[in-house]
């Protein structure tokens, strides 16, 4: 049927099948901006447009319901084009421009829906206040930005609409000596997002594409006894059915880490053993998504169901079911004699690149321990010893764009359009599985609609690539929101025991930390995540006697892997809160205890020599550390020593603080490359290996080049993360972007500068030492000057020296550590147990903030996610290992209404000698403070220590002794049976 509407000002007939929702019909009509973030549950708002001027979720509307109505998408917001002006349609409206300027556009996946919500608001209310903005955006979810900057964006737009000359309040800028670094600048890809343009994997898909759908295991732990796909294969429109019987047996690991990986190769594309609910049983590739779904239902499988292993206790219990009972093999360093006699061939095998101290028969996936000094002596010297255990449950990273990949053949080559953090690792891993040289594969990283670590793993690419490789067909594989919950990668639940010894005066004399992670069904990142829990928390304290153990166990919960912070949030929660508990024990102000023991500039971090990602680590000197200013400013802002009372009888107020740190990439492991080429008019192409995940990395590398080359940002066009086009980069993880990818761009720009000066000697006839680059794009000598335009024409002429091309790489053996202090004030309702975060101040030292407003956005986003994790986000499992809340209706991520009342990210400038123009990382660190700072504040308010996140109202009431039983009364399976709605 066709539905006639007025779409963005023009009459349009939408094609739709009777049951189609409006979102599908709009996508059919070429509208990309109505995104699908929750598989049509109405709970993310990403698909919203304006229908008859009102915000509506298009996934909840049948196309037929809008007959004759007016539909406006983000495309209609741009100002009307003056007749004949070619550039005009690309112009941004006042509102769109304000969004782009304010830093509120990160991955861009939610941007159209935020914009339409804001547009509707401004049309009915030309001068909205904070509360009205909050209400208008309360159903529009964003996982990247933490929302805070949207208030400024909308209010700026409102004022500018009334008075075009309105200038918004300036955000702080840094480094007066530099032209673009440290200054506000539009994110280079933001205008396209604001227009709802083509950007993401799903926007590249051709109409011919086949659809891949996965049959997920209904059991957490089972063998496939028998599988019959004949009926599915016979269905018209089915192109291929893949199972463990007809796919490569090569073992690999999905962790997109540098080779050789410290994670085990413990999976196959399809295995006979199923290790979690949603694990791959079979895939159907079909002409349409509907046919693929029908075919899935025709696959007949007989399972041998095994007892599942869910918790760390389950995994470690004597005689526990063995999650990986396959044969073991080592590439290097394995034991002289391997006894694989007890292995079950149905379990596949595990290949280790090098030993990671695993014992899969005890479900131990990896382990490591180490230390400095002598903890026994330290504890002997201590006046007070405190030992506590901290834990956290399963949370989701929840990028609004679920995992997605689109694969196709171009000639004899396979092209993978990926939403990934690691294009080169994807190519390496897929080449291994397909058993082809890397020449046959091209990986193009598209814009990612949020990644947060979950897209460091090869979650879909292998199977889609294989399907294309054997069928020659285009294949689209996109997770539903439910699949994203149960079969992507997320944070490891961990239990961390901390033992502290302190002298009366507060000096910490011994620290012991034992981090145990639940890695789930496969061992991606199983060694490095729990290790990072230690390596990003212990070095915050200067203590001579430190010992740590980090280990991970296999289980049958949803797979875990990398997630922003990478173990550090769990480690910070344990260690920071333990130190806070120690302060209470000593009768000290926690800030005094932190001050007495914390890291400072010039300190040598010896502990890092035993924390090296499965190899020897490198002790590091702290060259810059902004904790002095951070603590000092935070204390004043929060009025730390003033005890706040609340006028509501049942509400108590408390304050908390936590120190945070991270690294800037992995010195000795990471490497990045970049190339600059000069165009014929003196502008530049920047080819960066870096993977921008919405964080602003492309803007950062462009700015670094613009700074060095004295060029305008607009005169540099960037292409990044394409294995055919740009040089190699290990990828965007471990907070490496600024330091490594930025470092490579900076080095390439310096090399280009040298080449320009060299070429200019010919044009100007002056020696290079007389020449300098001046803005804009000019070489100035003592006698004359030449524009880059002139230099380009000269070098690229038939008699010239050739196009100017500069390639450089960046590696490091030293690290730069970003630091920060998070302060918060909470109000705890002693009758409902509800915690309200009233104030949250994140003071971050990222060296030189290269993109100040984008750096702030990283902080707001990181903090808000982890406020969600600390207070209410939690995947709930039943006894059989099924997740009971795999959707945004039941698993809540923070909305704009959940912001702290007073939310501030503050950048502390320090001077670091290694990073580009002194820049350090900012992308992960902000996730480390919320849990310990909030837990400390809860204790300050009501006197209970919450040692297990999330701190739900119910747990708090229990801790306060207001509920009778000490734990929830129902068993997990009862919960499943009774779940309402």
């Amino acid at each position, binding site marked *: 049927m066709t539905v006639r509407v007025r779409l963005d000002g023009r009459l349009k007939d939408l094609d739709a099948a009777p049951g189609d929702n409006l979102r599908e019909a709009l996508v059919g009509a070429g509208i990309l901006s109505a995104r699908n973030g929750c598989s049509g549950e109405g709970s993310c708002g990403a698909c919203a447009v304006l229908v008859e001027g009102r915000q509506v979720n298009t996934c909840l509307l049948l196309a037929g319901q809008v007959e004759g109505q007016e539909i406006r998408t983000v495309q209609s917001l741009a100002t009307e084009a003056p007749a004949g002006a070619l550039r005009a349609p690309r112009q941004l409206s006042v509102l769109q421009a304000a969004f782009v300027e304010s830093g509120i556009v990160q991955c861009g996946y939610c941007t159209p829906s935020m914009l339409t919500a804001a547009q509707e608001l401004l049309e009915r209310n030309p001068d909205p206040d904070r509360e009205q903005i909050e209400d208008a955006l309360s159903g529009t979810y964003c996982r990247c930005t933490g929302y805070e900057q949207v208030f400024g964006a909308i209010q700026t737009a409102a004022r500018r609409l009334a008075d075009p000359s309105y200038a918004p309040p300036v955000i702080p800028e840094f480094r007066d000596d530099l032209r673009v670094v440290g200054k506000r600048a539009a994110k280079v890809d933001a205008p396209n997002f604001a227009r709802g343009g083509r950007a993401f994997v799903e926007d590249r898909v051709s109409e011919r594409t086949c659809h891949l759908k996965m049959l997920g295991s209904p059991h957490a732990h089972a063998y496939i006894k028998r599988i019959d796909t004949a009926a599915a294969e016979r269905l018209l429109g089915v192109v291929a059915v893949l199972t463990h019987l007809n796919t490569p047996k090569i073992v690999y690991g999905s962790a997109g880490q540098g080779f050789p990986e410290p994670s085990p190769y413990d999976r196959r594309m399809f295995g006979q053993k199923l290790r979690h609910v949603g694990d791959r049983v079979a895939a159907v590739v079909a002409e349409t998504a509907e046919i693929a779904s029908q075919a899935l239902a025709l696959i007949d499988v007989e399972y041998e169901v095994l007892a599942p292993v869910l918790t760390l206790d389950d995994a470690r219990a004597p005689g526990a079911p063995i999650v990986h009972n396959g044969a073991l093999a080592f590439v290097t360093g394995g034991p002289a004699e391997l006894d694989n006699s007890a292995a079950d061939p149905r379990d596949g095998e595990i290949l280790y690149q090098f030993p990671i101290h695993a014992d899969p028969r005890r479900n131990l996936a990896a382990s490591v321990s180490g230390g400095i000094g002598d903890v026994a002596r330290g504890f002997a010297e201590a006046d007070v010893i405190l030992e506590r255990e901290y834990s956290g449950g399963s949370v989701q990273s929840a990028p609004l764009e679920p995992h997605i990949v689109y694969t196709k053949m171009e000639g004899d080559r396979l092209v993978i359009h990926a939403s990934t953090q690691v294009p080169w690792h994807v190519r390496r891993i897929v080449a291994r599985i397909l058993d082809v040289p890397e020449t046959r594969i091209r990986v193009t990283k598209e814009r990612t609609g949020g990644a947060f670590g979950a897209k460091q793993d090869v979650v879909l690419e292998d199977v889609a690539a294989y399907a294309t490789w054997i069928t020659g067909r285009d294949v689209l594989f996109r997770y539903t929101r439910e699949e994203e919950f149960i079969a992507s990668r997320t944070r490891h639940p961990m239990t961390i025991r901390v033992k502290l010894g302190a002298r009366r005066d507060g000096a910490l004399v011994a620290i012991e930390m034992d981090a145990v992670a639940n890695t789930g069904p496969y061992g991606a990142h199983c060694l490095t995540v729990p290790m990072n829990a230690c390596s990003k928390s212990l070095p915050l304290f200067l203590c001579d006697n430190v010992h740590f153990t980090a280990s991970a166990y296999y289980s049958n919960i949803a797979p875990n892997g990398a997630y922003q912070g990478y173990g550090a949030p769990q480690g910070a929660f344990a260690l920071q809160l333990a130190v806070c508990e120690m302060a209470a024990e000593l009768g000290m102000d926690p800030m005094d205890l932190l001050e007495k023991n914390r890291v400072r500039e010039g300190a040598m971090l010896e502990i890092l020599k035993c924390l090296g990602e499965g190899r020897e680590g490198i002790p590091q000197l702290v060259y810059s550390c902004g904790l002095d200013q951070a603590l000092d400013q935070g204390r004043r802002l929060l009025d730390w020593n003033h005890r706040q009372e609340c006028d509501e009888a049942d509400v108590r107020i408390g304050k908390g603080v936590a120190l945070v740190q991270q690294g800037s990439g992995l010195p000795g492991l990471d490497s990045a490359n970049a190339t600059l080429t000069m165009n014929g008019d003196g502008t530049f192409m920047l080819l960066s290996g870096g993977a921008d995940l919405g964080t602003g990395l492309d803007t950062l590398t462009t700015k670094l080049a613009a700074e060095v080359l004295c060029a305008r940002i607009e005169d540099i066009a960037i292409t990044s993360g394409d294995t055919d086009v740009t040089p190699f980069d290990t990828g965007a993880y471990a907070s490496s972007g600024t330091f490594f990818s930025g470092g490579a761009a900076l080095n390439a720009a310096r090399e280009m500068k040298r080449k320009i000066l060299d070429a200019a000697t010919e044009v100007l006839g002056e020696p290079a030492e007389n020449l300098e680059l001046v803005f804009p794009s000019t070489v100035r000598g003592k006698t004359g000057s030449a524009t880059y335009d002139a230099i380009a024409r000269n070098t690229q002429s038939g008699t010239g020296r050739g196009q100017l091309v500069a390639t450089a790489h960046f590696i490091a053996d030293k690290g730069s550590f970003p630091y920060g202090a998070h302060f918060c004030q909470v109000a705890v309702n002693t009758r409902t147990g509800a915690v309200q975060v009233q104030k949250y101040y994140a003071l971050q030292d990222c060296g030189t903030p290269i993109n100040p407003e984008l750096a702030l956005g990283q902080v707001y986003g990181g903090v808000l996610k982890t406020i969600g994790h600390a*207070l209410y986000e939690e995947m709930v499992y039943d006894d059989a290992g099924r997740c009971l809340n795999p959707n945004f*209706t039941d698993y809540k991520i923070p909305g704009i209404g959940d912001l702290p009342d007073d939310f501030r990210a503050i950048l502390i400038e320090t001077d670091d000698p290694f990073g580009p123009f002194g820049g350090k990382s900012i992308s992960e660190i902000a996730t480390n403070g919320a849990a310990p700072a909030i837990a400390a504040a809860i204790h300050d308010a009501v006197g209970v220590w919450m040692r297990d996140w999330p701190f739900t109202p119910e747990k708090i009431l229990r801790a306060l002794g207001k509920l009778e039983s000490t734990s929830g009364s129902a068993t997990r399976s009862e919960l499943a049976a009774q779940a309402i709605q």
Partner: protein
Amino acid sequence: MTEALELKSRLKDKGVFLAGGTDLVVGVAKGRLSVEHWIDLSGVPGLSYVREEGEELAIGPLATHAMLERSAFAPALAQAARTVGGPAIRNRGTIAGNLGTASPAGDVSVALLALDARIALVGSHGSRSVPIRDFFVGPGKTRIAHDELIQEVRIRRSADSAFLKLGKRQSVAIALVSAAVVRQRDGRVAIALGSVGPTPLRAARAEAHLALAGLAPEAIGEAASLVRAEVTPIDDHRASAEYRRAVSGVLVRRLLEQLAASSKPESPARA
């Protein structure tokens, strides 16, 4: 409307009335529901109104939450409507849909229950009016016959009313517990709760106690503990029964204190 009813009698179970779709279309997307024929009411003119008629408020079945939240007639109703979803949901979701879904967590349904709404149903055999107390039968089940439609919802003016809901997070969330209280003009107090039983429910014993004891602080405390005893919550992945029970009392107490504070001290009404 007549056309819709005719279609429905013809299609029987194969035809499903569609209003805003915020429950139904989600049900289809989640595979909980498959629908052969939609009978779309959203295009039927004249069903979307909120109208004061003397001492009564007449609400058309297609009145959206966005319309209800703007009505000052009964604060509890506006407050409840305001807590439903985000604006995009409130722009589409309707009062009849909320009643028709009959979720124990339906916010507007809880407010209407405390307000003693009357629900006018129309079917191929004529119309009837059902008091909301008799309307809900169980989760997802109501007294609407298969060939009937909600035609209108009516409430009477009350002296004061209020609604509160506790969700998992601060903003947009399904109620862990919700409660509405109403002070009638004769002084009687009505209390309804959501998410603490198979349907929205009235706290009859607490109401009876208040009818005798008024809104004095001790009476409120006693009513809150009666509420705790009256509710029949379950454990689920959102919260335990024990927590819901405890918090039911807290919400009711807070609401009653609000009512007491906003009303001049007056002697309790005795019927």
